[in-house]
């Protein structure tokens, strides 16, 4: 079972057991007595601290501004840089490759979590997207603040993660600005290319064993916001993973108007679909309405998500 969950977690979107628990932030109940509380946070100052941050595992108090952050999640590395917390990063995980500066930080392997390795870097805040092997409990026990930020179930929860990281790292204002930029960019596309008047069906392929995304994932929510109808929503999702594996038969029967390939980075192309048994009879393959998405960006939820939204919008525009 654990393997299945890990597989689901890793399937393309690099997202797993999406947690229904909502992540929220609250201001600290009492402002620090020595500082006049100010909404603007100067870099590397403890103004505004302590803060209380809530994640699915509970709430925690961060006493001073973190200066040695370890991000074990490529998504959150991107968010940290985007909200101006890049200077506070002590290390990132091996998959963190964007922005390019992330490659120059010390690296740790988030898929082979090693407590000693992480502690040796003397972090004051660790960010994880998944609790694969008890990372959260281990870091907690070692007295390190650890923030679990699981894959969001919709765009609103994705945007909320910017605010949480802004509060946790003392970059409240710039985080809010980045969140608003992303929100405006994304919603702009939703407004212009909405097809809910004449709904089109689609299939989003996470990998070539036909895993897909349903409406309980942020990607599914993005498609829905365009007014697109997801054929994967018909599949039961017993474990609430958000990533059902569809039958080839079903995809052929539904004959979706559009196919989005989230696995183009793994070598799947519009052309290679024709070689699959019976897929050359699909309308999308015949009509050329198969669209390749950037696998890396489509698998993350962060400052570049507007590019995925733009790709979907481009596809819809090409149709009209």
């Amino acid at each position, binding site marked *: 079972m654990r393997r*299945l969950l890990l*597989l689901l977690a890793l399937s*393309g979107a690099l997202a797993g057991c999406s947690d229904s628990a909502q992540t929220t932030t609250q201001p600290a109940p009492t402002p620090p007595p020595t500082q006049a509380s100010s909404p603007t946070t100067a870099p590397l100052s403890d103004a505004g601290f302590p803060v209380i941050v809530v994640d699915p595992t509970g709430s925690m108090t961060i006493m001073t501004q973190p200066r040695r952050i370890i991000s074990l999640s490529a998504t959150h590395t991107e968010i940290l840089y985007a909200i101006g917390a890049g200077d506070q990063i002590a290390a990132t995980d091996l998959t963190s490759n964007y922005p390019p500066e992330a490659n120059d930080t010390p690296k740790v392997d988030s898929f082979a979590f090693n407590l000693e390795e992480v502690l040796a870097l003397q972090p004051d805040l660790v960010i994880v997207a998944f609790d694969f092997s008890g990372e959260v409990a281990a870091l907690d026990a070692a007295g390190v603040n650890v923030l679990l930020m699981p894959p969001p179930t919709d765009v609103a929860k994705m945007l909320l993660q910017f605010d949480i990281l802004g509060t946790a790292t003392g970059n409240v204002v710039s985080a809010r600005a980045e969140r608003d930029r992303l929100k405006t960019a994304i919603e702009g596309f939703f407004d212009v290319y909405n097809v809910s008047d004449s709904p089109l069906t689609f299939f989003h392929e996470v*990998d070539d064993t036909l895993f897909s995304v349903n409406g309980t994932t942020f990607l599914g929510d993005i498609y829905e916001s365009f007014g697109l109808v997801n054929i994967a929503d018909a599949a039961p999702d017993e474990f609430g993973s958000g990533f059902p594996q*569809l039958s*080839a038969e079903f995809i052929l029967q539904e004959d979706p108007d559009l196919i989005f390939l989230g696995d183009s980075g793994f070598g799947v192309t519009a052309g290679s679909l024709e070689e*699959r*048994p019976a897929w050359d009879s699909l309308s999308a393959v015949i009509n050329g309405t198969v669209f390749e998405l950037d696998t890396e960006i489509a698998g993350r939820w962060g400052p570049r998500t507007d590019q995925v939204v733009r790709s979907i919008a481009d596809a819809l525009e090409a149709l009209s």
Partner: protein
Amino acid sequence: MLATLAFVAAAAALGVLVGPASLSPREIFVELLDRLPLVQVDSGLSERQAAILWQIRVPRVVLGGLVGSILAISGAAYQGVFRNPLADPYLLGVAAGAGLGATLVIAAGGDTTGLLLPAAAFLGAVMAVVVTYAAGGFGKRRNSATLILAGVAVASFFTALQTFVQQRSADTVREVFSWILGRLATVGWDEVRLLLPYAVASAVALLVSRRLLDVLAVGEEEANTLGVRAEHVRLFVVAAATLGAAAAVAVSGLIAFVGIIVPHAVRMLFGSSYRSILPLSLLAGAGFLVLADLLARTVLSPGELPIGVVTAFVGAPFFIVILRRALGGQQ
């Protein structure tokens, strides 16, 4: 024999008739008739529906049957040749070797959609068993116990190598796991063509050895006094079973428990002579895996459940029953 034939036929019929795409049984029946020589009738299926039937559902049933029969007969043969009720086709390292071969291809960024992956898995599986055989052959006389222990060691070693390679990147982990859980979900006639020659060769070789397995079942010493060279029989049977199991693993990933539960079910129902166990396992294995795959694609329809999960879910409780019976017999 008739009963198992009927079982296979019923499983195949169900497998072809039932699936996530709603094709009516009547249309399917007429469409099947249409394919007979000299018969031309219009089933009313659209071109795409016919493609679903002929290019997805039917090859999947055929491949499920082939893989199931090969795993079951290899498992039965292994149990006979090692006189060990817990032997399965993966005993001497087939699974670990295939896993390493597949992982190396995936990690090296090779093309995982073509023939490279099954070829590497096949080579890895055969290599693991050869190493086991070589390692288990120290000392003057090779016996089945040292061979099994060598298999355990080799399998652990190959699994360790495989894990080491796979952990190097997230993409590798993802693809390896989807391979390990067994994949009948995206197969077609290509996989059937790939497996068929090995399956036939392996099944024929094992079926001819079924009398020798009965002799061996009496004991190695006794077999030797009857003029049967236990060591030669074992080498031949292991080679044949490995060839088939490796080919099956290469096209469909790891499918647990079929090789154990089917031969034991046959043994309980039809007695312990390998003359009947081998052919009956071949048939019952086909029927069992076709039915398991039917569950895999209907329980969460239109979603898929990995086939390895279904066989383990059915297989594990059954396995416990067998263990309890075996323990009860000793008291």
